């Protein structure tokens, strides 16, 4: 579903992502982890078509993102860490707007259960300025899910959510994956990733230093120990520093 081959991203002389290749199959949840400045956000933004990669290819559902960006983007949704909303559109109007952009004909029928699932149905006629940080996050998620994307990219999806919100978000991600979506998410909350992700990709200084299922990664860095946490694996893999 997501095929990344030799992806690189450079900013002038600085290389943020170097020769990155991996795939994410339907139903898989890939956790993108790494120290600050490892290139996680650059990778996610390149995968979502927000910034053009400096090299390599990204295929979404078999469609080359660089060659056919519009077709590829119909299949994906990107959820930024900070909800980006339009100040003068109510919750419902946000969904109406997104439906027109993606051509979701039966959006009213889809929107209501989505709003109810995310528990913002009561706020449907309110502006973002009247919503709490968590509610805004939920609205951004509802907008992303409206066109039933088959590929989802989450950048720090749990930021700003309360414990209940975190639980619901985790359940929501897992449900989408079970329904066949390919999901990539980046987060520093490793214990939470451990509960959600089926696969992990560890980046450091723009390079892949480990990739595989949780079991594979665990076997690679546990050195025979049992019950080693993802946090411990992360520290061992990255050497405990950003550099």
């Amino acid at each position: 579903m997501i095929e990344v081959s030799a992806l690189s991203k450079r900013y002038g002389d600085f290389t943020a992502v170097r020769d990155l290749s991996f795939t994410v199959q339907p139903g898989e949840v890939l956790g993108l982890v790494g120290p600050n400045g490892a290139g996680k956000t650059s990778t996610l933004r390149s995968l979502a078509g927000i910034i053009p990669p400096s090299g390599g290819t990204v295929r979404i559902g078999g469609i080359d993102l660089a060659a056919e960006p519009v077709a590829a983007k119909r299949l994906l949704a990107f959820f930024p860490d900070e909800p980006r909303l339009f100040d003068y559109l109510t919750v419902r109007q946000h969904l109406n707007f997104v439906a027109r952009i993606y051509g979701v004909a039966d959006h009213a029928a889809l929107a209501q259960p989505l709003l109810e699932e995310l528990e913002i149905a009561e706020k449907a006629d309110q502006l973002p300025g009247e919503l709490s940080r968590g509610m805004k996050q939920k609205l951004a998620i509802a907008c992303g899910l409206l066109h039933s994307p088959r590929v989802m990219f989450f950048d720090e999806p749990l930021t700003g959510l309360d414990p209940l919100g975190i639980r619901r978000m985790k359940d929501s991600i897992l449900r989408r994956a079970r329904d066949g979506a390919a999901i990539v998410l980046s987060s520093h909350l490793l214990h939470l990733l451990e509960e959600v992700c089926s696969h992990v990709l560890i980046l450091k200084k723009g390079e892949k230093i480990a990739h595989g299922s949780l079991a594979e990664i665990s076997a690679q860095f546990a050195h025979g120990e049992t019950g080693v946490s993802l946090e411990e694996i992360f520290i061992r893999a990255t050497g405990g520093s950003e550099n």
Partner: protein
Amino acid sequence: MLGALLYLRLTSLKNLLLSRLRRLRQPKYLLGAAVGAAYFYFVFSRPFAGAGRPSTSSGSGAAASFTLSTVELIPLLSVFGAFALVVIALFTWLVPSEKQGLTFSEAEVAFLFPAPISRRRLIHFRLLGAQLHILLSAIFFTLLSRGWSFLGGNVLTHIVGWWLVLTVVNLHFTGAALTLNRIFDAGISVWRRRLVILGGFSVLIVATAISIWQNAPAFPTGNFGPGAFFSAIARTIDTGLLHWLLFPGKLLLAPFLAADVRTFFFALGPAALLLAAHYLWVSRLEVSFEEASVAHAEKRAARVARFQAGDYRLGSAPAKARREPFPLRVPGRPELAFLWKNLLGTRALFHWRVWTGCAVAIMIGVPWIIRAGGKAPFAAIIAIIAAVFAIYTLLLGPQLARQDLRSDLPNSDILKTYPLAGWQILLGQLLTPIAILSGLLWLSLLAAILALAPRADTVSWLTPGFRLTAGLCVAAVIPALCTLQLLIPNAAALLFPAWFQSTRTRGGGIELMGQRLIFVIGQLFVILISLLPVVLGCALVIFASQWLIGPAAAVVLATLLALTLLAAEIACGLWWLGERFEKLDLATELRP
């Protein structure tokens, strides 16, 4: 403790100046500073030659237009200035409907409010903080009022004069805010307070009116100029009880209006006493202001954030959702979704019902005014007003109507994930300001066409048929012109995002002012270059064809050519900028 607060102020000021100087290493700021400095030089380069030499006869400059001598003019300015101060004071006491906070930044609130600092010291900190702005404002106003050198005095007396006025006004605002809080705390309702103030003021006005009726000199009769008229007004105002109400204001303005250094020093004493009295009043007030100040700081921070995000409205965000401008059905052109979205963010005024109402009012009103006024004078005035309004709308409109990509640039990450080509997003974003500016220009055109009707009597070719044809042709070109005008600032935002973002910072010094000037000059230059082939082509077509097919048909032909050329330019611009938008990485562009 005050030492620590002073340290905070001075260190912040030093670091601000250093950071401003440091950023001059970046070409965009250096160039901006150079242009800003050049602007200041050319605007304020008139020498202070007249300063210190008050005229005693007919005056000079502005004074001459009043046909008053400086000796007559100074009391007049003193009265009007004092009256303005009284009005400001009245509103300061009358308007507030909730507890007033003092101006602190969010950081100051976070650090200073929980700190072991007394209220009195916080007030002093606030007063001290305002002094820098007051001093800079005093210098700026002195520069602005250089043309008033006919008043006498010199640069220093004018700076001190302005400083005194601004400081006392600032102290009065602070004192009024704190006193009003005390009134709120005492449980006195807003309307009760307003009734008392208005009642007191009404008594004063009535007493003054009686005094004027009994004592005031009569208005000049016969053929008198504006000087005599304003003098009579000043004499009328400065009568009875109002004379005593104006007295403190006149004392305060006296140093600024002092004709020479000796008069200045004589005037300084009473003004300083007024300042001291205000200071004593403010410093002795022990009233809670923290809660309101926190709310004030939050509102201010939200306003700044909104401004930086492209929302230039001064008021707070609307509390209620607006009615949709039109139903947005699915499926349909996605570009129209942006029009729908951005119209929701505009004021209620931009609604088709309002536009239709305006058009009907113009269609009824303009002919009526012309008929009632005896044709020519009113027709010419309406036509000139419509033309001036149209020119300003076309030139300045794109800077004011920003409901396009410029406002949505912070959301570019989300916009770029939409399954749309870059040009589609750009076109969709442009539709709202195009609609607004086109609507305004169409209304001006309608007024101009109706106002030009009487000219048909004297100008043979200005027949109703020709006016209708020409009007429709211009109306057809207007949206294309607006699109081209709006493409330029959006292109600037996309091609120079770092420059564009920096100009959105409120204030920011001479370098940011220079940057804004560069953008305005650049816009004018590009539009002239873009319109040159269109204008030349149209002129050629009209010149060559009007002899054969008549003026109306020639105008239609020229309009078709203009629309073709403009459409080609717009299409190229949209495609190119759309490509640019697809490649834009705002985070990288804004990296220092």
